């Protein structure tokens, strides 16, 4: 408990001083997106890593948040700070509603159903042209403002988004180590045993599905207000897969793992800049290799690898 808190404080401090090292540079901009992706990866991880329920449609919830915020603040001139919770509650409610039938499904079937859901949402973004601007996108979404500060630069957005992301992290760490979090993990390990102990597995899964959608929606709203422009392509099937990759690479059921996965996958294209056409292969290859050789993700795999190397070196000398 104490250790968790210390770790979190250390992590937060690191995040907060980080901008001192690359103030103003392009990396700041990438780090803003690392923040948004961290929120999304945590949202998916709560569902996939803790509750053991897969979703291949999370880009849809992310998009719903972004579009609701975007449309409410442009067409209906709502204050962004009002639009954001309105969007989140709406998305949470919708997710809860669809959650009951969809979470009855298991494994591959759940994967396909959520995938279908994501694609339907994507098509709706494309087709409701009067509302969303359709494939051409929605522009002139206002930046967030707080006490006279307009969040329109990378540095300001960095603090805004990482503030939110850290809050989501703390929220999730607390949740994971609580009565509800334990019940969730119990459902993941043995649904039947959890039920016998009085855990309403179905309700719990729906709750987490809705919570996960709410966090994704918040990330979507922040994305919309940071980018000030959104179009459907950012919320397609590919992005759902990218999120899944982040969670798996980082480590299922680890909040810091989600951060690692999000950071790696957001920064990776920067390293691969020279290998334009090859990045899709590296991407697919990474997914395959991780599942095969490091099923616990980076957050567990790296320490294990380290131990192995230390052992090898140790025995080598002996």
């Amino acid at each position, binding site marked *: 408990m104490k250790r968790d808190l210390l770790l979190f404080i250390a992590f937060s401090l690191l995040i907060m001083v980080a901008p001192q090292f690359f103030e103003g540079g392009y990396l700041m901009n990438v780090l803003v997106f690392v923040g948004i992706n961290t929120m999304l990866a945590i949202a998916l991880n709560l569902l996939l890593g803790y509750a053991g329920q897969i979703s291949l449609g999370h880009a849809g919830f992310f998009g719903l948040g972004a579009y609701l915020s975007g449309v409410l603040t442009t067409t209906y001139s709502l204050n962004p700070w009002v639009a954001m919770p309105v969007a989140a509650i709406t998305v949470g409610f919708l997710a809860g509603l669809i959650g009951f039938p969809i979470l009855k499904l298991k494994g591959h079937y759940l994967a396909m159903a959520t995938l279908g859901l994501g694609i339907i949402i994507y098509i709706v973004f494309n087709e409701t042209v009067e509302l969303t601007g359709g494939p051409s996108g929605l522009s002139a979404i206002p930046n967030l403002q707080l006490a006279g500060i307009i969040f329109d630069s990378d540095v300001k957005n960095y603090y805004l988004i990482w503030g939110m992301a850290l809050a989501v992290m703390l929220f999730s760490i607390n949740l994971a180590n609580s*009565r509800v979090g334990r019940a969730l*993990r119990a459902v993941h390990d043995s649904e039947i045993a959890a039920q016998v102990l009085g855990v309403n597995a179905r309700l719990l899964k729906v709750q*987490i599905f809705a919570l996960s959608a709410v966090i994704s929606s918040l990330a979507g709203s922040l994305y919309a207000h940071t980018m000030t422009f959104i179009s459907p392509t950012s919320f397609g099937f590919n992005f759902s897969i990218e999120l899944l990759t982040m969670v798996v690479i980082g480590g299922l059921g680890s909040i810091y793992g989600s951060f690692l996965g999000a950071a790696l996958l957001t920064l990776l294209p920067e390293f691969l800049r020279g290998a334009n056409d090859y990045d899709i292969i590296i991407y697919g290859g990474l997914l395959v290799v991780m599942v095969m050789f490091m099923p616990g993700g980076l957050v567990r795999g790296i320490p294990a690898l380290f131990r192995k190397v230390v052992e090898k070196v140790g025995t080598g000398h002996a």
Partner: protein
Amino acid sequence: MLEISGVTQIFGGVTALDAVSFSVSKGDITGVIGPNGAGKTTLFNIITGIYHQTAGKVLLEGKDVTGFPPERLARLAMVRTFQNIELFGGMTVLENVMVGMHTKSSSGLLACALKMPWSISEERRIRKGAMKWLEFSGISDLADHPAGGIPFGKGRLLEIARALAALPRIILMDEPAAGLNSQETLGLAQLIKRIRDLDITVVLVEHDMELVMDICDRIVVLNLGSKLAEGTPREIQESPEVIAAYLGDDD
């Protein structure tokens, strides 16, 4: 305490249970025995709401609980353990037992995540309670070990501790001695008796006759889906039908 009346289960044309009726009185240790395929585990699954029977009723403390899902039965203070222990392997031993206290705590999702004062104090209470049950089962030294890595025998004890943490009035155990060595079985017998002393009704399915005869107050014998006999251990041992159908069979 628990009353089974006319429970019938048909799986795709095969009758697994045929109008089984018996009752369990409060504070007893009741054993359900029978050869393989007698329908013991099926019966347990029906009582605990995992299967839904084709016909018949289950009454818990006089209340008709037929068709209730397992989580609702848990709230009515009935819990069970499994034949192939179902531990939460990704969690520590202590956390496993803490899940057992689920019905005895109430903090919701938001309260937990936002660390509301009442949820913090509840968490403290859960931890304390769970520790107590670990001590009761004699495995408190394993509290911080991952449950996935402990020996099988300890896993049994953990599963029982976890079930007890739900403060049940009745506990059903599916073959608690399966896979245990004789030393561990002796310990188990002691534990089950201590559970009864807490005024918890125990129903168990078991193959280990020695154990059953030693600890049970009453025994129900199933054979091929029907009830064959019911009585005290002595009565069962002397029943000619049981000897013919079951004890004669060297199992």
